[in-house]
């Protein structure tokens, strides 16, 4: 029984990471109608920023999260304004191809700058956790989940309580109508992508605390962000949170099933994904498209 509780807790904590990764992804998908295949690469850029700050100046990884956000915000704004905006009206296949290529370019640049060595951020409290009988709750993962929930709150607040958020939602609902009422489309596109990238950066900072990072470590996260968004549904912050937590649970519980193993992580994800797509295409909490 305690084994099961342990798995559930680990699943929810892992789910927190997925929430953080998927928030920006689902924002960009929902508003810009772009499935950003470079999302994982942006996540890893954030992880490297945290790592660099930690090894250079011994800055605590959780304190460097705002820096990650800032750096990725700037990169994201430039990417969208300079590159992706050129294809925003093209058929969706083209943004797919473009972001896939961007992913490769970013990974290659990371390889050049940081080499392919494994990098890890090991703090003094990295190994410790709260022990409740046989159940262990690692502090650092709890921190990650907390940050993810705060991020979700921030995103919700931006979208629902600010003028910028209103403009972003308006663009998501109807681009042309938004333009007619005076929204600067190019700026809002870039801003949306920048916010998505900033969230990816923070997610990367969290990831660097419990996993060693390499330039290609982000690729699985792109795929998992997909699965989370499909599972939760598009168009709501709460849907992403529910999808992320559910997905973390499914993955951990699925891998602990006796006849499967960690080798099936992606397969489990995609069986879930395909089943949800076919049975309930709008996800657990998503709005009808």
């Amino acid at each position, binding site marked *: 029984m305690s084994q099961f509780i342990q798995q559930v807790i680990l699943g929810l904590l892992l789910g927190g990471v997925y929430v953080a990764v998927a928030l920006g992804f689902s924002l960009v998908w929902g508003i810009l109608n772009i499935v950003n295949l470079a999302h994982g690469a942006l996540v890893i850029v954030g992880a490297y920023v945290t790592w660099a700050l930690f090894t250079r100046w011994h800055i605590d990884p959780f304190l460097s999260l705002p820096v990650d956000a800032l750096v990725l915000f700037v990169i994201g704004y430039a990417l969208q304004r300079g590159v992706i905006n*050129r294809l925003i009206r*093209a058929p969706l296949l083209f943004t*797919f*191809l473009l972001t896939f*290529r961007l992913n490769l370019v970013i990974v290659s640049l990371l390889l050049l700058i940081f080499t392919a060595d494994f990098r890890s951020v090991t703090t003094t409290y990295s190994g410790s956790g709260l022990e409740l009988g046989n159940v262990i709750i690692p502090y650092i993962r709890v921190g990650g989940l907390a940050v993810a929930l705060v991020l979700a709150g921030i995103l919700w607040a931006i979208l629902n309580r600010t003028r910028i958020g209103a403009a972003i939602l308006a663009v998501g609902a109807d681009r042309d109508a938004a333009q007619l009422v005076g929204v600067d489309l190019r700026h809002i596109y870039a801003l949306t992508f920048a916010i998505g990238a900033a969230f990816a950066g923070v997610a990367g900072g969290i990831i660097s605390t419990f996993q060693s990072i390499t330039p290609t470590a982000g690729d699985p996260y792109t795929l998992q962000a997909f699965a989370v968004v499909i599972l939760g549904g598009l168009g709501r912050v709460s849907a992403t949170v529910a999808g992320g937590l559910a997905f973390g649970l499914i993955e951990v519980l699925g891998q602990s099933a006796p006849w499967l193993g960690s080798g099936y992580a992606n397969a489990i994800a*995609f069986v879930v994904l395909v089943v949800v*797509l*076919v049975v309930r295409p709008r996800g657990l909490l998503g709005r009808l498209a």
Partner: protein
Amino acid sequence: MIAREDRLPPRLRRSIFAVTMVALAYVILAPLTSIDAAQQAGLPLLTDKVWFRIVTTVLMFVVLASAWNIVGGLTGYASFGNIAFFGLGAYTVGALVANRGWPFGLALLVAPIVPALFALVIGLPLLRLRGHYFAVATLGVGVATGEVVNNVGPLGASTGLFLPIVRSDLLFFYLMLAAAGLAVLTTWVILRTRFGYGLLAIRENEEAAAVIGVNTNFYKVAAFCIAAALSGIAGGIFAQWNSFINQELVFAVSDNVQMILMAVLGGAGTALGPVAGAVVLELIIQTLAGGGSGSVYSQIGLGILLAVCVIFIPRGVIDFFGGRSKLSLRYFRQTLRETSA
């Protein structure tokens, strides 16, 4: 839109045709000079081993891009899971030859069947999805199939499968050439049949196609199965040619993206577009990425080059080589304006 290649002035058309035929004849016949008998007879060697392998790879991508084109270009369903068909074809041959001791020729006959059956099974649920959802779900199928294969003991698990080596570059070149010919011919025939018009109708407007009596589900799944069978043949040939397969080699998502780029940059929805795209792009990739030392830079260069291509020629090079538009700065400005924010 079906490609109409007859807008060029006849004289230009004839010379393009002649040049193409000469190039094709060279590519097909030059390898024959590497046969021992020809060498002993003192014929000049018109090609070498490295070039041979490159051309065989190009032909493999001609098959893959053409097969993708049947689903992605004609039917309008952008599949990111076609690599699963290639991988399944490769593993079919791999398992039959390495584990069961079948002769390669016999195993190759089975190679298209397994992926086609797989396409039949997954096609029914997946082809109900559209747009991003179809792309994502097929991507998932591609990755998950590879992962499952990677965990199955009899298929060599993560080590992969080793096939007995067959030392005949010539054989694999001509097999791949035949497969490429078959793929192009299949597309060409489809484009001229009722079936092909049905697929194009689905791409343009699926509801309207259903209303005028196209059995959309049957058409889509049939297209999917044909693409799967063609990709499976390429995979089967690749397995024996390379004499080693594992998950990373034959289930690489980047290869799937590559075949899409080839079809799209060449001209999706046409018979010859994917061929042009595969030849040009694969030669560029081989030139850039061939050297090991500068491969990171070449990756970056390639990425930027392809991004620029996707941005500026979204309808593929066939758009202006096929004579529908003129290649000019104005054309680039116009395509940019059409898609920009």
